[in-house]
């Protein structure tokens, strides 16, 4: 089935179906950390009228803390890849698009090395994205090729029509799921019209927000590598790394070993940030990015130049988290606008 209607309270049946299928159903739940994805067993736990989760969904597939393997002395003891069958409902289109970029990193475009930890979780997850109603003042997905009703990265795109939700399959996996569940009714023409009107309205709202103009930026950003603009904005930056941790496409990590007094231990993967001075420090003491300017520049260049050179993708989905959470309000939109005018 490519398009189906479900009444909001009937999401309960969807959750039950998921449980029967031995899938964990994740939905947006209001909690201590704001709204975050939690396993739900009942429709009432879901908060449908939220803007976006604070921590992007990368934290589900690429958690802050991941045990790569366990060892005892010099011997490998265990490699445990935890991958549950899951349905993740309510991801915003920007975050779903980010998953596609992360897929490329962990799968490696040249298919030489695949990351089983991330990929097995991704394969076992069904992504049901929820189209946006109204953008936040910090949103700019349309500047980077996205859309508040975009389908990239999701298996099913759901749109809130008021009393009902309309589900559209965006992948074979999504189509099969909708068919097998038997929970969806064929949408009436009116439903489709309402959905299209909503999509139009939200795109209109996006046009009214001051989104950055990056047309042509990726072609010329390399030339501005040594521009004093970088020195100027670096002064404000605290080097705190909050932007990278909350960014849905940032994927840098560290690998460290931890062991107890009995030489039993774990090899751990944890989030890391190119904004930290130790990130690129050699054992010899040499540091290719020894000052903050180089590190700040690296973040922007990586997203708007290097990834474009490698896979023709801008690794930014315009979610606006880096703007909202930067303690000194370094605004990427201003940076991009300024860079584009240089």
């Amino acid at each position: 089935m490519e398009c189906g209607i479900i009444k909001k309270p009937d999401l309960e049946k969807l959750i039950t179906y998921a449980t029967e299928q031995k899938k964990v159903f994740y939905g947006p739940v209001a909690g201590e950390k704001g709204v975050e994805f939690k396993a739900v067993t009942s429709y009432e736990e879901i908060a449908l009228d939220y803007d976006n989760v604070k921590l992007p969904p990368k934290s589900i597939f690429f958690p802050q803390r991941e045990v790569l393997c366990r060892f005892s002395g010099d011997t490998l003891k265990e490699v445990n890849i935890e991958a549950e069958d899951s349905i993740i409902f309510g991801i915003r289109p920007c975050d779903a698009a980010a998953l596609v970029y992360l897929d490329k990193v962990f799968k490696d475009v040249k298919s030489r090395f695949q990351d089983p930890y991330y990929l097995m979780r991704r394969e076992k997850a069904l992504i049901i994205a929820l189209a946006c109603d109204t953008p936040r003042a910090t949103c700019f997905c349309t500047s980077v090729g996205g859309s508040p009703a975009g389908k990239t990265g999701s298996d099913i795109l759901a749109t809130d029509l008021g009393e009902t939700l309309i589900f559209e399959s965006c992948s074979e996996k999504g189509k099969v799921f909708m068919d097998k569940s038997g929970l969806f009714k064929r949408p009436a023409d009116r439903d489709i019209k309402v959905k299209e009107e909503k999509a139009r309205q939200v795109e209109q709202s996006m046009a009214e927000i001051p989104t950055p103009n990056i047309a042509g930026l990726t072609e010329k950003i390399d030339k501005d590598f040594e521009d004093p603009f970088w020195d100027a904005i670096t002064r404000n930056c605290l080097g705190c790394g909050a932007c990278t941790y909350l960014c849905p496409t940032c994927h840098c990590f560290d690998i460290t070993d931890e062991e107890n007094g009995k030489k039993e231990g774990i090899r751990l993967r944890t989030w890391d940030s190119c904004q930290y001075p130790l990130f690129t420090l050699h054992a010899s003491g040499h540091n290719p990015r020894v000052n903050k300017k180089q590190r700040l520049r690296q973040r922007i260049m990586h997203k708007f130049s290097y990834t474009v050179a490698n896979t023709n993708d801008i690794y930014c989905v315009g979610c606006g988290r880096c703007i909202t959470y930067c303690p000194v309000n370094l605004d990427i939109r201003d940076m991009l606008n300024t860079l584009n005018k240089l």
Partner: protein
Amino acid sequence: MKNIEKRIRYIAKELFEKGKIELFIGYEAATLPLKSRPYFIQSKEGAVGSVSSPVANLVWNSFCSNNLAVFLPKLFEIDPRSRRKDPNLKPKIAIVAKGCDLRSITTLIKEKQVPRENVVIIGVPCTGMIDKDKVEALFSGDEIISAEERDGLLTVNTRKGVKREIKRQDVLQECCNECCCPLPPPESTDILIEGKAKEPVHGGYAEVQEFESRTPEERWDYFKQEMSKCIRCNACRQACPTCWCKECFADQDDLRWIGVSTELSDTMIFHLIRIFHQAGRCVSCDACYRACPMGVDLRTFTRNIVKDVDELFGYVPDFNLEEIPPLSTFKEGDSEEFITEPEE
């Protein structure tokens, strides 16, 4: 507040025209409502490329909560590999300082991270800063589009079309409600701008006292709950003006004191040690609390250490350049019981 803003702009202009400074640190309007952000102006000769920094952008309002002292240690750091002829050449920097900011600057001067003779301290009387989270909480998730302040009233407009007036007094930051030093003393500044500050509060530890009145189990549960929100991003450490260690204990790996992951014990120890390192140095500016993207309630714990040092040593970091912080010195009357009469 508008008068203070005018004065700040005038002072900046004067200082540059008289060649007294190379850098001016103040505030400018942010790109988000309910916020102002740090603002740097270099002298006309050192104007930096395409980013123009006119004095006219300087602001003073109820959103100027950033503690600007955090930028100073790095600006005075001498890079041993620097090729400047005179390794002692340090910039002259003017900085706008509220009471809390100045107390941080005082601590930094005492700890030799900032040379007093190189800073022009522009003291500003503070009537308290507005807490963005408190305002947002009044609108149940509805996004705030604009917030304008006038004569003690904050007019908020939201995305869903709600318009409301709020008294600024009702939404001040907790640290401002408990602030002991809203008016920098004239002798501790180079220029003190005229204006009225709010009334100082002494021994303002109401929230901490409430926390302390809970049972140890309750306190531990709360601490655990808050610590599990932490994602180890280090924003708190970077935003804190007195966290200036060139190599943070948490980053050392030879020996490694704590792990880098969100393992609860590692997170707890990171915060415990960071907060204990702030004993006698924390000014309750809440920069760490504001910087935290996950909303960890750091201020309950930082304020706790401030209260402990106040009670144990009778010391709260203030504007006195002579008084040595208690953990940096030893007095004959200090307790030795833990050495001479250890517990069984």
